[in-house]
């Protein structure tokens, strides 16, 4: 048993539109789409052509750099269109459901030996659910990890409550843990939010870690940094609990059932709730909005992807967030006292007066992009034992030695979501870190 972890530095951003606790089960849309861009660093090699008939679980494409890793269709139907971009890069694979729900029978796990389990995961399209540190990319199936970390809660603003969505999935989660924990000689950790109801208390075979404190207490980097900080050469695999449930289900039923219970959150929804949906499913019909000028995000407001009104549920998302767009001017917005917007300073911004107020934030940048000027604020919301501004600057001037020395192996872009949110200079921290990680992966490997 591990000691509880208390995260002190961080920030809880409370927004209007937390999902109401009810699960709806609307009819799934016929339109599905898979975006290779969700899988960072993957170079897709297509296996299917337009108008091919696929079953749920049939391979759509694989990664050219790691051919074992397959990506499967979440639905049975017809490949309607393959949208390509510049230099014929695959942007989107559109599939129209036949509504028959036929599943390909996956090969079963042959034995409990690691390579058999890995073969099953890779060939069944489950490997993409497992990410690795360093670099925060899909795990390399050829190198087994030192440890495996599973995130049991999401501390991001308006995030789906895993305990609520997964209360019926305990068996699947247990199955997945039983198999995955065989893949490492080290430990398998599960982070849980301290003080939550004990839905996951009976899960066995993992070291449970109770984490308390503000966001990013749910981010695995925060916990890894405290328990087994990543050194050069270490490999850590990370997973989210909802993805684990899909893996577990695939192991026990031999079907790739990519169903998720997702949260519809954000102030633009007339009614927030949880709905049963599926990876890649069109979300158009779920959007009952009170404001047409809204930003639709697959994921949360800090790390999610903008998908638009005709968007689809992205591969890793557990919520759809809708917030008002902020494409309007604000008279003297830089000088006047601010009551309705969030701030970590007190420079005529008054959110410090109302710690429990819920904010209805829009997507306005509240200012223009500038060079880094203010110092000392990022450290307040960044719990890792790393200098955030210095590592960002090292990424900007591409000094590989410095990036490595400052701890680049330990971070993922998500860890810089909060510093990006509070950045007065409106710098794109997450993409700076992502580009830094890409560079390191390319140069150091």
């Amino acid at each position, binding site marked *: 048993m591990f000691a509880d972890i208390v995260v002190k530095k961080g920030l809880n951003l409370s927004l209007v539109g937390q999902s109401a606790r009810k699960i709806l089960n609307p009819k799934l849309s016929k339109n599905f789409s898979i975006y290779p861009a969700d899988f960072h660093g993957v170079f897709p090699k297509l296996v299917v052509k337009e108008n091919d008939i696929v079953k749920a679980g049939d391979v759509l494409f694989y990664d050219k750099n790691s051919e074992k890793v397959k990506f499967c269709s979440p639905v049975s139907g017809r490949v309607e269109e393959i949208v390509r971009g510049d230099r014929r890069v695959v942007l989107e694979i559109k599939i129209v459901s036949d509504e028959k729900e036929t599943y390909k029978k996956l090969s079963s796990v042959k034995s409990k030996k690691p390579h058999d389990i890995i073969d099953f995961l890779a060939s069944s399209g489950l490997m993409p659910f497992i990410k690795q540190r360093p670099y925060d990319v899909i795990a390399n199936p050829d190198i087994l990890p030192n440890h495996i970390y599973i995130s049991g809660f999401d501390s991001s603003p308006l995030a789906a409550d895993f305990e609520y969505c997964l209360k019926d999935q305990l068996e699947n989660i247990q199955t997945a843990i039983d198999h995955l924990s065989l893949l490492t000689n080290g430990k398998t950790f599960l982070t849980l939010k301290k003080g939550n109801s004990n839905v996951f208390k009976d899960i066995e075979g993992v070291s449970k870690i109770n984490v308390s404190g503000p966001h990013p207490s749910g981010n695995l980097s925060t916990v890894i940094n405290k328990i087994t900080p990543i050194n050069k050469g270490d490999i850590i695999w990370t997973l989210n609990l909802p993805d684990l449930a899909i893996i577990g289900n695939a192991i026990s039923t031999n079907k790739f059932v990519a169903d998720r219970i997702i949260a519809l959150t954000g102030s633009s929804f007339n009614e927030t709730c949880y709905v049963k949906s599926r990876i890649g499913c069109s979300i158009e019909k779920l959007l009952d909005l009170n404001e047409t000028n809204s930003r639709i995000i697959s994921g949360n407001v800090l790390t999610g992807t903008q998908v638009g009104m005709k968007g689809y549920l992205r591969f890793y998302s557990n919520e759809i967030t809708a917030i008002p767009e902020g494409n309007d001017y604000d008279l003297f917005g830089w000088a006047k006292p601010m009551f309705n917007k969030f701030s970590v300073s007190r420079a005529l911004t008054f959110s410090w007066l109302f710690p429990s107020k819920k904010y209805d934030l829009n997507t*306005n940048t509240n200012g223009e992009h*500038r060079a880094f000027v203010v110092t000392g604020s990022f450290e307040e919301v960044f719990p890792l034992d790393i200098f955030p501004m210095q590592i960002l600057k090292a990424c900007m001037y591409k000094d590989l030695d410095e990036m490595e020395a400052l701890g680049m192996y330990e971070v993922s872009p998500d860890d810089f979501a909060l510093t990006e949110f509070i950045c007065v200079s409106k710098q794109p921290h997450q993409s700076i870190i992502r580009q830094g990680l890409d560079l390191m992966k390319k140069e150091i490997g």
Partner: protein
Amino acid sequence: MSIKSKLHEIKETFKGKKMAPAFNAFHTFLYTPNEVTSSGTHVKVADDLKRTMNTVIMSLVPCLIFGIFNAGYQHNLAIDAANGIYTQASLFGNFLTFENLMIGSMKVLPLVIVSYVVGLTVEFIFAVIKGHEVEEGYLVTGMLVPLIVPVDLPLWMLAVSVVFGVIIGKEVFGGTGMNILNPALTIRAFLFFAYPTWMSGDKVWVHDAVNRAGTPDAISGETILGSYAQNQEIIYSLSDMFYGFIPGSVGETSKLLIVFGALFLIFSKIGSWRIITSTLLGALVMGLIFNGVIETGLVTNSSKFYGLMSVPFWEHLLIGSILFGAVFMATDPVTAAQTNKGKWIYGFLIGFISIMIRVFNPAYPEGVFLAILLMNVFAPTIDHFVIQSNVKMRLNRLKIKTA
């Protein structure tokens, strides 16, 4: 058609053109732009750099207003003194008077206007040439400059040094956020070294004292530091020093208002309390050391250092511009140390060196700006060592693991 949509249309016509940054600078001054987040986080905090800079300016406004009145007050006081009339300072009696305001405004407002117009013109030119937005850094610099110069400074000197300071102090390094030296202090240093006869001596601190020097109407313009450096009797009471009814640079005499400014900056989380505290701490420690030296009897009152060395250590904070420097200059985040530990070291050394220069350089007893400029240069080195400890921790971890 509203102003908002009209400006929006003009902005669209400027898009991609050379003059766009110049127009946008005015436009974004009126309206925060309609820009929305495109990648990364979909929401952002309310603060931008304009708000940050504006907060600093607000904390400086009381000092400026006081400086305006004080310019007139010191002028009248010196004239009275020359005529043999001595009066006590009283806030509503002879300080906040219309006459003081008029004299002060005539002298100080031109300094402010020249500082802003010249400095911002340089910024605009660079923004248009380099095709980036006009950055807000100069808003604070432009306010600081008039506050740290003598009231009688000729405007052309100010203009020349502002051009020098902004170009050499900032733009050659890449603009706001990239500079190594504090631009306001670069301007001050340029003034000091380019026009030493003007900037030092005992006349420049009171309006009209220079003009009248050598005439029968001559008035005194000496600062407290100057008097100390010459081992003269100090004629000002402690309360005068604290409230600021003393001659000195325009905005840095009133310690009370500087303390208010400091509290506002610390409260709003814009100024670094670490730097402010450690700077004052450093100054006090150095003052204590000098007091100790005096007590040992090594330095007697025949020494030229005796005057300033024997100042009680805490009184150093009340005279000269150490307080102003600690609150508004040392805290400039771009040129200060950027790590929290580094800030403590950086501030402490500023305070320490300031008082050292003050005591050992009686020709020009104000060492704060030199100390800050010096530490600006060393700030990256301080940060480097702070960061190295983190790097070493990581390397050690790896060694233990592989061992």
